[in-house]
């Protein structure tokens, strides 16, 4: 029996398990660039229209968010606008898929059942990589074909499709290595996700300052391939080399460990619970603290990096009307730097909401795993159990936003010699996002209480919010549709005047959703698996 025996059977199983999920990912990621290109054709029908936006798009704030613009053409603009989003999402898809079919299967013990059959040692990892590669190849092909169909040049379309698929492959490799390190699938996804988020920040800093930093960031390589702007095909080799290195590391690490084990052997824990471990809240703290800490680091860094990028804009001579227009479409308004900061804190709000949802849906994991049964057979009521976790979802989000506001204010303030003032302003810009994130927590609780099996749909709500934010204005979508996302109602601080009314409305919606969910939770059967 070779060490790869059974790979094909496992790959078929993975495809069967993921048939809906992967189809949605592949179609979504292929349609997004095509739609963007089609809309640019409508928006800028002539070359003159395009030339008008030239200087505008090379300004540091946009470069920080979206990367540098290499070619003034519909294709160049499309690659610039959608590139970073596309690369982050394809990286996310790849790492989640690989971890799901390796470490998650191992952690739940399902792999043990399979490994006892005629399955080679490398088969599970190989099957996961095979399926992920297949998805990436499909995405690359469909993306390239879609872009060509809009009338864009073949070479550039192929380059963009290629870049998308290669970013996916690279993060499949990163996840293959990360999945070997820890026993928990959550931690493995966390490590690979941190690499992904880190590369976004590196690229943002690198593209606005020291260029070499961008070369450390694969999301930057995708743009460095320069689709529609004298493609540099050799960059593809860079992806392949690193994808191969990470994948090889994954296989090598998997040789050094037992099934189910990580590389770091588990340390013994305390023989007795600490005196504080006596309430559902204390348990929730134990279960949530790692996640919260990781997010604290991530958002503090994001705030600092973006605060630094904002300073570059202040030095910009006579900002043109178009730049302000572009930033306004992205959610900012008012003076240029303020518009940039408002747009950035809008993004930070959605990032923090990702934590909010993770922390809220921990309740669902506790239920689906059956752990809640032992807990609810003690004098702990359901609402008290849920409240323990929701404290983190609600106040943890507040902490994250505060951190991002303070670090952004400190860095930007230090450069503009107004630390006190900027910290206060950016703290405000961050904190107004809180009620919008709370609405998603409310939605999560409502689904949990009323339709528990659908509670992962909370993520869909966030993804729709992000896409509407990124592309809503570009696609000329109806305002009523845009208003469906909670983030559309957040006052755009700094710059715009602060109004309390939308804050109160959002909070009220969050409270009503949460109350409906908790009422449902008290009424329904537990556990629903």
């Amino acid at each position: 029996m070779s060490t790869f025996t059974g790979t094909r059977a496992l790959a078929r199983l993975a495809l069967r398990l993921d048939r809906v999920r992967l189809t949605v990912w592949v179609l979504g990621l292929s349609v997004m660039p095509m739609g963007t290109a089609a809309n640019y054709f409508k928006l800028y029908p002539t070359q003159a229209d395009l030339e008008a936006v030239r200087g505008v798009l090379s300004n540091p704030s946009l470069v920080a968010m979206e990367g540098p613009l290499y070619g003034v053409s519909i294709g160049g603009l499309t690659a610039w606008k959608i590139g970073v989003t596309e690369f982050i999402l394809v990286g996310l898809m790849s790492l989640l898929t690989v971890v799901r079919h390796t470490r998650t299967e191992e952690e739940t013990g399902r792999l043990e059942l399979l490994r006892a059959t005629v399955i080679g040692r490398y088969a599970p990892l190989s099957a996961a990589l095979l399926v992920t590669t297949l998805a990436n190849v499909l995405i690359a092909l469909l993306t390239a074909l879609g872009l060509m169909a809009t009338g864009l040049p073949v070479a550039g379309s192929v380059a963009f499709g290629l870049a998308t698929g290669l970013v996916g492959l690279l993060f499949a490799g990163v996840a293959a290595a990360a999945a070997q390190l820890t026993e928990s699938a959550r931690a493995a996804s966390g490590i690979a996700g941190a690499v992904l988020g880190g590369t976004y920040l590196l690229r943002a800093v690198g593209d606005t300052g020291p260029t070499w930093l961008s070369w450390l960031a694969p999301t930057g390589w995708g743009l460095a391939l320069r689709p529609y702007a004298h493609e540099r095909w050799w960059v593809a080799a860079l992806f392949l080399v690193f994808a191969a290195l990470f994948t090889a590391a994954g296989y090598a690490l998997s040789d050094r460990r037992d099934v189910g084990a990580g590389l770091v052997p588990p340390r013994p824990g305390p023989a007795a619970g600490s005196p504080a471990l006596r309430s559902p809240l204390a348990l929730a703290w134990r279960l949530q603290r790692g996640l919260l800490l990781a997010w604290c680091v991530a958002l503090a860094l994001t705030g600092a990096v973006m605060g630094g990028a904002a300073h570059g804009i202040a030095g910009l001579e006579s900002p043109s009307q178009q730049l302000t227009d572009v930033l306004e479409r992205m959610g900012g308004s008012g003076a240029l730097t303020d518009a940039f900061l408002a747009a950035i804190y809008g993004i930070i709000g959605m990032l923090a909401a990702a934590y909010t949802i993770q922390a809220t849906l921990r309740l669902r994991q506790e239920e689906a795993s059956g752990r809640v049964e032992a807990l609810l057979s003690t004098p702990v009521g359901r609402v008290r159990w849920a409240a323990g976790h929701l404290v983190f979802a609600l106040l943890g989000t507040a902490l994250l936003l505060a951190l991002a506001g303070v670090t952004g204010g400190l860095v930007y303030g230090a450069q503009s010699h107004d630390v006190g003032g900027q910290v206060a302003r950016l703290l405000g810009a961050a904190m107004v996002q809180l009620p919008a994130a709370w609405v998603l927590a409310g939605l999560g609780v409502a689904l949990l209480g009323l339709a528990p099996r659908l509670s992962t749909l909370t993520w869909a709500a966030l993804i729709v919010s992000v896409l509407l934010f990124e592309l809503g204005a570009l696609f000329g979508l109806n305002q009523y549709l845009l208003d469906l996302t909670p983030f559309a109602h957040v006052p755009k601080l700094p710059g715009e005047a602060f109004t309390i009314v939308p804050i109160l409305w959002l909070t009220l919606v969050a409270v009503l959703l949460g109350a409906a969910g908790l009422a449902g939770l008290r009424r329904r059967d537990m556990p629903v698996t």
Partner: protein
Amino acid sequence: MTEAIRADALVKTFGRARALDGLDLTVQAGEVHGFLGPNGAGKSTTIRILLGLLRADAGTARLLGGDPWRDATDLHRRLAYVPGDVTLWPNLSGGEVIDLLGRLRGGLDAKRRAELLERFDLDPTKKARTYSKGNRQKVALVAAMASDVELLIFDEPTSGLDPLMEEVFRQVVREEQRRGNRTVLLSSHILSEVEVLCDRVTIIRAGRAVETGTLAEMRHLTRTSIQADLATPVDGLGSLTGVHDLHTDNGTVRFDVDNAELDAVLRRLAAAGVRSLTSQPPTLEELFLRHYDGHAAATEVAK
């Protein structure tokens, strides 16, 4: 209060599946009550209704004098429960889980906790992630039995334990009952366990109680196996009412007899002159088989 648990005509459906179909169950205070049935008969569903986790579609349930759904948190102060499939928080140690569950129930007896850890041979410093099924079960058992409660509910508690630990479990349950006159509801599909531990038994099948009573009553309903060495042959033994499966071999007879007819049959044997006689009490096994005829029952009992 003499009834710790009383369920009348409980009905619970999941979609189209009818998990409970008019189930009755009465557990007297202070007794160890066996709740016997194959997988999928509705044992866990019943227990979850009694714990207020599930809501019955019809019928009534009373637990320790309260409504299990409405008064769940108050009632839970007075009971401890060990689920059939124990899942624990992977990053907490066994000791931490025991203390957490114990404290949530209102505190646990530290001496008893140490003693139980010793007897169950459980290392409390290991992370729950690294425990086997049996060890996870021990964590839940120690947490339950070191708590000061009136009612213990066990759902197939020994399914992951080795025979040595099963024996420890039996000893501890007996001690528990003696210690504080506690009520124990023990769901199981292992007949010998129920036979050894329980005062009364309820047998359920497809969501209904099909038999309930003391072991003595149950035995009365069933047969005794007799093997006798006789001085003279007995004619017509096989045609007596209540005699089944008669085998005769060189003056030795083996047969099963309905307990109701035992007296009459023994008189006939005595008349023929008994050299030696062994009788075996009826096992729940037989009772079980009679209620679960068919293939499913046979595989169940084989376990």
